[in-house]
């Protein structure tokens, strides 16, 4: 049975049930944020918004949020023999060869450190897993990493390279529970601008700790500077 990711569970609990709603209640007051957006008051005589809300984005650092999915290729590792072998025959090799695929949801939040570089944090979660995997099959559970990247490009295409390091939890289904592992990856990405503040892109990477491990993915990017400030 599929396991629902934590994000989906939180969303489900946040949605109110119409069956429990009180009838004939006065509508709640409009949120302050919405009222401020519609206000056309005079500077110095209005309660909100503050002057210059239209220019606030450029007064702070360039922040980029990426939401996407990865398909991760995880090679299987050799299994430890379950019993002590006596005699001259070598123990049977189990679990060597083959690989497994995990699908993950990923969110990266990055802040520009210069015109071409940025630092960020990334959280990755696999929302679906199966209980019918063979022992030795590896599935990605969750992970977090720090990201350092370089990017550049024109106003149609943006390309970049990243180095990501952190930790993750992988389950190899040997009855030993989930295992923590280190992560060190080199990545490349390309993004196309849909609007001045939104991109859609693809990325791919390889592990620097395990030569057989790689991933590909796609993402939606939300930028605080139009065209990334280029």
């Amino acid at each position, binding site marked *: 049975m599929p396991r629902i990711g934590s994000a989906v569970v939180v969303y489900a609990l946040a949605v109110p049930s119409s069956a429990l709603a009180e009838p004939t209640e006065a509508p709640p007051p409009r949120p302050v*944020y919405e009222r401020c957006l519609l206000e*056309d*008051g*005079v*500077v*110095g*005589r209005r309660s909100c918004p*503050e*002057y*210059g*809300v*239209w*220019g606030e*984005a*450029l*007064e*702070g650092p360039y*922040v980029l*949020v990426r939401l996407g999915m990865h398909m991760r290729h995880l090679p299987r590792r050799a299994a430890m023999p379950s019993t002590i072998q006596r005699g001259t025959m070598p123990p049977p090799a189990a679990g060597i060869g083959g690989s497994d695929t995990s699908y993950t949801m990923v969110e990266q*939040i990055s*802040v520009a450190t210069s015109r071409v570089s940025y630092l960020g944090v990334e959280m990755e979660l696999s929302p679906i897993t199966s209980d019918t995997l063979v022992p030795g099959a590896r599935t990605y559970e969750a992970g977090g990493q720090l990201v350092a990247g370089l990017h550049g490009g024109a*106003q149609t295409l943006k390309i970049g390279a990243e180095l990501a390091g952190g930790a993750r939890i992988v389950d190899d289904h040997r009855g030993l529970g989930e295992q923590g592992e280190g992560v060190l990856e080199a990545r490349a990405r390309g993004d196309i601008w849909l*609007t*001045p*503040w*939104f991109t859609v892109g693809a990325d791919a990477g390889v592990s620097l700790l395990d030569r057989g491990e790689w991933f590909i993915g796609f993402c939606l990017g*939300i*930028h*605080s*500077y*139009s*065209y990334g400030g280029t």
Partner: protein
Amino acid sequence: MLARVAAIHRLLIGSLVVTGCAYQPDTFSYAREPFKGVYLSVQCLDLAIAHRQENAQDVIAYQFGNRCDQPALVDLAAAHVTGDTGDGEVIDLYAFDPMREVRAMFLDARAVGHEAIEYPSGAPLQNVCVDAASVAHVTPAQWICFRD
């Protein structure tokens, strides 16, 4: 920093939901709402300037869109506004800004903004004129006048 990231989350996602679009040059409109006032373009700014009276004071409403693919300066503090008292005297008008908010800022590429600023005067005015070019720090002046 986390509060700023959360605010940017809300602002950007909200902007996408509400509009999803960038300002298009020469349209003087955004989200199907036309700018109100007199239209003119000053370098990278498509500017609409309107005049109204509030509480017997002159209010100039500025709406602007960046027609370029790079940030554009919007300096409403430098806007040169004058008033004609009717007996041949032209006086400079200054923005009502008790909180000292009005300042030069940059408008992001293809973004829009609007502000309404009061210009109090000690005497009734026949005309109120605005040099639109002064908002973008350019010359020559581009005067727009409103009969009061």
